[in-house]
């Protein structure tokens, strides 16, 4: 059976919400009652049926609304999508990865037919039927990366590998947790991670870089990252921070359940075959506190994680103004009972 796509917004009236099924499959990121940076990379292999790990690229009930929000972001600010000239081969690699994965995982929604370089792509939810020549930019209405990522949930960066480093040389970033692709384009791995507090000192980036440089084709990996967002806003970009920043002052004990969202990024990494570049996908999942506490283990655990979070990390994630209000609200859902190991609901 195909997915049923919801019609919802991530701005203005914020009608986004999760169905009970979407709550159940939410990638809750905390496997214990406290949080510290770790490399936490694992093989991106198929997970349980129905989970966000079932397929390499997860398409869910928010697909059409996500894509509509991306189109709005790009209409306002085309610099959210950038690619340095030497990244064109990697862009085509990305077209292949996403079209192949989406059509194999969701054949009722997406179809890809390939005859040599003559490709035929059908995206039924978005009403797209496109014949094109693989490798020929002139046969698509956008550059290859932009074309396919306007049809795929999640931000995507293409990392070039040279001189023993990874370089952020292309990307489409419209649902970011406060980092600017426009500023970071062309940076090395450690340079674009420069603002992250504490993690450099504990060697996280040294280990992660070493691991990624040795990634092989056909062996993708994944990790989770998280932050918090006020209102279900996907575009929490620094570019627009002067517009959405004041949301952070609107949290009161009465509206925590509806306004405060846990935002989890499922980050996937694939080695690409032609360019030897790496795809870095950042797929954001949002869940409001009211929805989160319907899973008792998650309510208890998030309360404990936020209480013990080092201040430097809490500040970097922008939670300073509403962290305590949220902890106080979550306290009602923490009876002190022990929580079971692992992330999944009991």
């Amino acid at each position, binding site marked *: 059976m195909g997915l049923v796509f919801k019609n919802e917004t991530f701005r203005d009236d914020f009608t986004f919400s999760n169905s009970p099924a979407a709550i159940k499959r939410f990638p809750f990121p905390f496997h214990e009652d406290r949080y510290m940076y770790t490399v936490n990379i694992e093989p991106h292999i198929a997970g349980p049926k129905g989970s966000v790990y079932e397929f390499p690229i997860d398409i869910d009930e928010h697909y059409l609304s996500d894509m509509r929000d991306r189109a709005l972001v790009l209409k306002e600010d085309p610099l959210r999508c950038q690619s340095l000239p030497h990244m064109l081969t990697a862009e085509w690699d990305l077209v292949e990865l996403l079209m192949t994965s989406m059509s194999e995982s969701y054949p009722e929604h997406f179809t890809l037919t390939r005859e040599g370089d003559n490709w035929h792509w059908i995206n039924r939810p978005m009403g797209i039927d496109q014949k094109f020549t693989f490798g020929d930019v002139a046969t698509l209405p956008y550059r290859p990366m932009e074309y396919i990522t306007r049809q795929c949930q999640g931000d995507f960066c293409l990392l070039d590998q040279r001189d023993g480093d990874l370089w952020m040389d292309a990307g489409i970033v419209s649902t970011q947790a406060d980092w*600017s692709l426009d*500023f970071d384009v062309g*940076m090395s791995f*450690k340079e*674009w991670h420069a603002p992250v507090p504490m993690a450099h000192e504990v060697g996280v980036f040294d280990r992660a870089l070493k691991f990624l440089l040795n990634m092989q084709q056909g062996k993708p990996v994944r990790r989770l990252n998280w932050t918090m967002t006020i209102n279900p806003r996907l575009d929490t970009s620094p570019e627009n*921070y002067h*517009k959405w920043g004041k949301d952070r*002052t609107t949290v009161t004990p009465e509206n925590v359940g509806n306004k405060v969202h846990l935002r989890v990024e499922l980050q996937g990494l694939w080695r690409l075959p032609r360019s030897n570049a790496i795809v870095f996908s950042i797929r954001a999942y949002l869940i409001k506190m009211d929805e989160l506490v319907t899973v008792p283990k998650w309510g208890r655990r998030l309360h404990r994680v936020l209480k013990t979070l080092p201040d430097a990390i809490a500040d970097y994630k922008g939670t300073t103004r509403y962290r305590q209000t949220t902890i106080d609200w979550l306290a009602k859902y923490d009876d002190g009972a022990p929580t079971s190991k692992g992330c999944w609901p009991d």
Partner: protein
Amino acid sequence: MLSTGIISRPVYPGLTADLKARHNLFAVEGEGAAAVLDLAKKTPPEFFTKATLLYCPAASAGKDYEKQIEARQPKALWTFPTPATVMFRLKGVLQTATMGTRLYVTGTEPFIGLALKEALEAGIDHKSLITEHRGSAKRRVQCVHCKGFTENVTTNPAKCGHCGLNLLVRDHYSRRLGAFQGVCIDAEVPGEAPAPEEIFP
């Protein structure tokens, strides 16, 4: 000394002579001239006979550096009124530069950043540049909101010269843009910006 805790900021290790270079090309601003003269004390005279210097006196105007450099008998010494005019000439020189040319840049950080951008555009790897910071710690800042560049920033926060927002100057540097990132400091409560302090004198 500039703070070294900023991971995305380039390191400026100081001028050293590449004695194998066939042509030594210098972009020099302000107190950077003193760095060139210090280098001259440590190098054989032939080094400067293979040197072309593009020099903007800027904050060190009137200090007589020009004469002292001339005394080293460089192949050429060109003096320019502003960093922008240095960059225009640098671009032209780099277009016809031959193998064996070594680029040295010294002066304030914004000046080094601009020269580095020219070098990158000419296909020179940033790691092959020889750089030394001298003079003011002022920063060039890009507003992340309107994308405008504000020059000669010595305070934090600082006002964007284009859109007027109060910007927190973050310790995050883009080599491609030659600038630090400025992010609205009072976005959450407009008007609640701390008073600017002279942090980058």
